[in-house]
């Protein structure tokens, strides 16, 4: 099993920007749309390289989603870019009717997701986006864990036919997965094998889960860490194989508990293998302004929170003789 280490922190949105430029070079059908956040989404390199395939729509996200849906008619592969909030809740009905129900090959790419957006506060910190998108039939939902993986995922979603929602973030964050990885949609990654507790993590919190596993190891606990980079479709085999081995689990996400990864895994557990599950997520509250690390701590998404959740899950397992 390879051991992951930070090769130099980078923002995941820049991984998207690099991936978009590369897939733009590879595939002339790729077009990009942005609603006045080209710099924030790191789409400027694509816009500069392919001005004839870049569409600035202005601050008009509903129109952007409709145009993207229309662009697919005639074979384009549109990538939309704006913040996670404006990519989902602001345009939910446009996505629902013109993209998901119509099954159009649109890639909705969303940055600044979660509380690690930081100082902008709750209006911009989308914590519901994955849940909203996960409810839509035909929609694939992806949240890669670091820069390299976001870059790889951007290439992968262009090659996948059908609507995709991909979320990523703003802050510089440890970059630890291989630069040359192949991203397989719907295939969870076992980042670290273990037998005592499964930690299922998504997005930025995969790194926190790996850090928590190190601390747990010092306590003599052998944690398995699995990166669920594709929330939908869930790699149910990977989840169930792990829980059958460990008997208890923690889910970790920078998202609302309702509708997110823990919710998704709990559904699978209940139907297949009821087992204790501790959920690291934001619970029924809006975010607020602050530094990313302060907010992760405040909302209980930090490394010590994952460690404590794992200990609690193991205690529950022992109490119930799983």
């Amino acid at each position, binding site marked *: 099993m390879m051991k992951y280490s930070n090769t130099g922190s980078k923002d995941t949105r820049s991984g998207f920007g690099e991936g978009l430029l590369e897939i733009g070079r590879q595939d002339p059908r790729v077009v990009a749309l942005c609603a006045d956040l080209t710099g924030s989404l790191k789409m400027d390199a694509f816009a500069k390289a392919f001005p004839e395939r870049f569409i600035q729509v202005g601050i008009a996200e509903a129109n952007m989603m409709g145009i993207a849906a229309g662009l697919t008619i005639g074979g*384009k592969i549109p990538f939309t870019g704006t913040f996670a909030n404006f990519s989902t809740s602001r345009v939910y009905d446009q996505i629902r009717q013109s993209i998901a129900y119509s099954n159009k090959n649109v890639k909705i790419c969303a940055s600044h997701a979660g509380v690690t957006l930081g100082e902008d506060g709750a209006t911009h910190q989308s914590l519901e986006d994955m849940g909203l998108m996960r409810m839509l039939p035909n929609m694939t939902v992806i949240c890669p864990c670091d820069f390299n993986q976001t870059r790889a995922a951007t290439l992968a979603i262009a090659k996948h036919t059908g609507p995709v929602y991909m979320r990523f973030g703003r802050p510089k964050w440890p970059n630890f997965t291989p630069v040359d990885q192949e991203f397989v949609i719907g295939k969870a990654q076992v980042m670290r094998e273990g037998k005592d507790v499964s930690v299922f993590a998504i997005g930025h919190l995969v790194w926190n889960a790996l850090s928590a596993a190190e601390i747990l190891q010092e306590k003599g606990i052998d944690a398995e860490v699995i990166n669920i980079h594709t929330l939908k479709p869930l790699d149910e085999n990977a989840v169930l194989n792990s829980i059958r081995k460990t008997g208890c689990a923690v889910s970790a996400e920078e998202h609302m508990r309702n509708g997110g990864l823990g919710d998704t895994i709990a559904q699978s557990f209940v139907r297949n293998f009821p087992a204790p599950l501790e959920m690291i997520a934001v619970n029924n509250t809006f975010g607020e302004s602050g530094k990313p690390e302060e907010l992760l701590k405040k909302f209980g998404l930090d490394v010590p929170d994952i460690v404590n959740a794992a200990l609690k899950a193991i205690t529950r397992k022992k109490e119930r003789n799983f």
Partner: protein
Amino acid sequence: MYSIKELENIARQVRRDILRMVNGAASGHVGGPLGSADFLVALYFDVMQPDPTAFSMDGKGEDLFFLSNGHLSAGWYSVLARYGYFDVKELASFRKLGSRLQGHPATQEALPGIRMSSGSLGQGLSVAIGAALTKKMNLDEHLVYCLMGDGELEEGQNWEALMFAAAHKVDNLIAVIDYNGKQIDGPVNDVLPLGDLNAKFEAFGWKVFPMYGNDMSEVTGTIKKAQWFTGQGQPILLLMTTHMGCGVDFMTDNHEWHGVPPNNEQLARALGQIEETLGDY
């Protein structure tokens, strides 16, 4: 090529289809479809003339049509069937379980002729703009048409789209407003007045043509005139005055027939006013 008289005869049959379909489903909209029937017949049988046996989602090398006000589905389905996209007998399945003719147009059931789901209002113009941009990128010189309701203009997304199309010189697009002045709750002027639409569209940078939509020769003539103005840097809008419920005296200009199905007695009275020209399905 169809003569004006032949086009009018097709529109008569389409109106009969609309009434029978909505009556058969005991649900649906007749007023809007009756009012826009002449336009849709003109567009398919005279203006676009796509090949109904070679439908593809991508629609490369042909004109495209998008229906933004999806509740006009009965009229569109009738025109598609009468034009040859599918058997007219299938019109009897409108709004029934397992039908390809969903209450509002959908792509999920793969009904030939439909490229986008609509029904939730205000989205069609954006979609048509996207399809028009793809045509430009593909160096495909065919046009994109989009029909919208006037009440639908109360949705803000339309104004985002109107702004965008002019700014980006989407000049291979002809949008058509079904300007019947009626919406479900009553006259548009009572619900939310739209003001001077002609002036608004022109101020937004569109080339506007007024058109009376219940006169076949005016419809075909105006669309062809509008086509001459495509490719000149401006999107084009036909402000099409129509009578909701046109063809049936007790439905004409009456908003109460926006979304109410005629019962059997009302259907008989209505059909008595419209000649069966091509044979009922």
